[in-house]
């Protein structure tokens, strides 16, 4: 087993067993959704529908319903596009780059962040599609033989690179996310009670069974996909920045764009992860898996990428002066002091100043402050794109065509609508999908679980010393659990004694046991398999004796355990070791 350094903080707080992880993650899927979920879903759905309405209105009427004009040909649409793509960068970065660096804390957030990525990139993709004006001929961006003598798409154009980059990113991101989800869907499938959900999750889980060979392949597939996705993440936002950098517009035409856009994307993506995960961990009660340390790690990433972005802003300013190009210099002076100075000021404050506050440990470990900053960063990053796009365009080479950009209600409606749609998807995800990677968390439980790190986890008894083969014959085909060190001498005697016990003797022991536990109607049967240490076989044995419910099990004490052992002859000491009565009590109260 992989050992983690003792000074490294645990990633899973408290004492959790493998079963606890399953329970904690599946609880929200199997239980009823709280009222707040319905309220949020309703609001998100309304906003989303409003957005869809605006899109339909735009498609019916034309791009003129946006506030664009001859000078400012790109504004909110591309701002929103870049903003959403940027948000979509954290997910793959967390799952791919952090996987390659073996950062285990990513497991608390990777599933949720990947979902966020997919939904965000989907929202991003809407904007260029709408901007085409004629959505129904959107397939023209693909190199498909056509009626114009096969006039191919222009592979020299960064806008076409974008088409390939975004669609590759979306589909590869989806595959990466889904391959990780399959084993977790299988877990939910095997627990599902209602036939409908059983059916749904068996389709979603693709018939996953968890064979050794499959896990072997799973690990390699995850690793290779991470290796492929890492350069992909960097390429996507680099290519988005080429949309601007390869043009000859002052303020866009800068070589610093690719690294600066990628850093900005990670910055805004992590901010969005913080916003969402702080709510999700609270709403789904997952504080044990996503605690302050995880938030702190993410805040450090925000601080680092925020600083890179800050340096990039200042470099841009310096180079515009140092280049000696008057148009270039003017673009930047106009940005900072022109009619859009307030957008520039908002960008500088939100993106350069606010992440620097994360140097203070008190602030970066404060959840409320983190939530506040994450919102600030999201706003700041939206303004960054707005500043880059609109301020560079609105005062171009020809002063007579200088103009301002004012958003129309369609601009605003579509933007708000994508936020609504995003949350519709996200809330549905949080309700029906496992928000934490169940299988992956189990792999780090023993190396990074708190109770395993500080040795408070219940110890397993040592391997058996000598097997007791004598016990086999009493109840046929029942497991023989060999002695553990914990077993008292007393039990040994009982276990050996039993070989001679007659049928009548056994019956009398059963009746005396049942007297203490009380008889019940078999139809009120509980699922005794939920008790750790009881499997389908042992459940059958218990049912044969007359034990059907948790209530009966909860009444068991040491003497009943011994009596049970003497009847079944097959599990000496097991019931006591696993403390069935205590377990049954908790199960009863559920």
């Amino acid at each position, binding site marked *: 087993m992989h050992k983690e350094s003792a000074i490294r903080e645990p990633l899973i707080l408290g004492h959790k067993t493998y079963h606890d992880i399953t329970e904690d993650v599946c609880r929200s899927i199997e239980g009823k959704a709280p009222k707040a979920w319905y309220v949020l879903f309703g609001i998100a759905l309304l906003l989303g529908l409003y957005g869809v309405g605006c899109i339909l209105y735009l498609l019916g009427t034309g791009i003129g319903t946006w506030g664009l004009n001859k000078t400012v040909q790109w504004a909110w649409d591309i701002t929103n596009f870049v903003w959403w793509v940027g948000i979509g960068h954290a997910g793959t970065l967390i799952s791919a780059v952090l996987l390659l660096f073996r950062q285990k804390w990513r497991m608390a957030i990777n599933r949720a962040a990947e979902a966020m990525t997919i939904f965000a990139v989907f929202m991003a993709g809407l904007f260029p599609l709408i901007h085409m004006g004629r959505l129904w001929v959107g397939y023209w961006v693909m190199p498909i033989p056509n009626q114009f003598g096969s006039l191919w798409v222009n592979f020299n154009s960064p806008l076409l690179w974008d088409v390939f980059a975004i669609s590759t990113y979306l589909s590869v991101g989806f595959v990466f996310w889904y391959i990780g989800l399959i084993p977790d869907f299988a877990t939910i499938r095997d627990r599902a009670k209602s036939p409908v959900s059983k059916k749904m999750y068996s389709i979603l889980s693709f018939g996953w069974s968890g064979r050794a060979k499959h896990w072997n392949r799973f690990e390699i597939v995850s690793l290779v996909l991470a290796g492929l996705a890492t*350069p992909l993440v960097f390429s996507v936002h680099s290519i988005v920045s080429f949309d601007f950098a390869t043009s000859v517009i002052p303020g866009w035409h800068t070589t610093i764009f690719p690294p600066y856009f990628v850093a900005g994307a990670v910055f805004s993506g992590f901010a969005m992860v913080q916003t969402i995960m702080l709510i999700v961990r609270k709403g789904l009660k997952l504080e044990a898996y996503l605690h302050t340390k995880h938030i702190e790690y993410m805040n450090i990433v925000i601080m680092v990428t925020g600083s890179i972005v800050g340096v990039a802003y200042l470099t841009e300013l310096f180079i515009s002066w140092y280049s000696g190009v008057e148009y270039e210099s003017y673009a930047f002076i106009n940005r900072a002091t022109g009619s859009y100075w307030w957008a520039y000021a908002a960008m500088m404050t939100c993106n350069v100043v606010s992440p620097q506050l994360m140097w203070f440990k008190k602030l970066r470990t404060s959840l409320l402050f983190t939530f506040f900053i994450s919102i600030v960063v999201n706003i700041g990053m939206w303004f960054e794109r707005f500043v880059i796009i609109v301020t560079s365009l609105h005062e171009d080479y020809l002063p007579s065509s200088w103009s301002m950009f004012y958003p129309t209600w369609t601009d605003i409606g579509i933007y708000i609508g994508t936020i609504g749609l995003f949350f519709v998807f996200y809330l549905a995800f949080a309700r029906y999908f496992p928000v934490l990677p169940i299988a992956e968390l189990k792999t780090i439980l023993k190396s990074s679980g708190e109770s395993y790190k500080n040795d408070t986890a219940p110890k397993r008894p040592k391997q058996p010393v000598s097997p007791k083969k004598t016990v086999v014959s009493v109840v046929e085909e029942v497991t023989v659990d060999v002695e553990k060190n914990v077993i008292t001498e007393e039990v040994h005697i009982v276990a050996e004694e039993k070989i001679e016990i007659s049928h009548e003797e056994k019956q009398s022991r059963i009746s005396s046991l049942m007297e203490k536990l009380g008889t019940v109607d078999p139809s009120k049967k509980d699922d005794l398999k939920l008790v750790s240490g009881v499997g389908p076989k042992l459940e059958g044995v218990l049912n044969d004796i007359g034990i059907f419910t948790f209530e009966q099990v909860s009444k068991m004490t040491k003497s009943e355990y011994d009596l049970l052992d003497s009847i079944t002859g097959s599990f000496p000491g097991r019931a006591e070791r696993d403390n069935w009565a205590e377990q049954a009590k908790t199960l009863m109260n559920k």
Partner: protein
Amino acid sequence: MADRVIYAMYDDDDVLKDSAKKLVAEGVHISDVFSPFPIHGIDPIIGVKHTRLGIVAFMFGLLGMTLAVVGFKFFMIVDWPMNIGGKPNFTLLQNFPAFVPITFELTVLFAAHGMAITYLIRNKTLPGMPADNPYPSTTDDRFVMEIRLSENSKFSGTELQAKIKETDIIEIEEKDYVVVK
């Protein structure tokens, strides 16, 4: 005669691994292990070979790259050379810097999807496929060894059971071996 199979259930991954080591040392052939998460180090013990999916990904990546390059040559140079700002439209090599981004994207696209599809087909995990884990709890917190009698002809069923019972199991069951998929 129908094949029989013994399922031995454990409640801990490390215990299963140690038991597997012990059983294999005694000459038992373990056909498979069902677990809720990957047990690191179990593969060499039970003789699961390292997967070749990495090679598959590489080959699909090469395919994607080749398609991209052949496509550029045909679309942009041979079939309809476009004059875009005077960029060289007569030679693939000189125009290639502009094609690097999409070449990369297509390489990744093919490698990722090719590998993922191969993975799903080889696992027989496709939409609508039935699951074949012997107990539902193996996707939660139970670890099950599958030992087929036909692969352990030197032992009888009882002998095998006795050997398995010497390890720290929770349950053991012998039944007919059914191939689900």
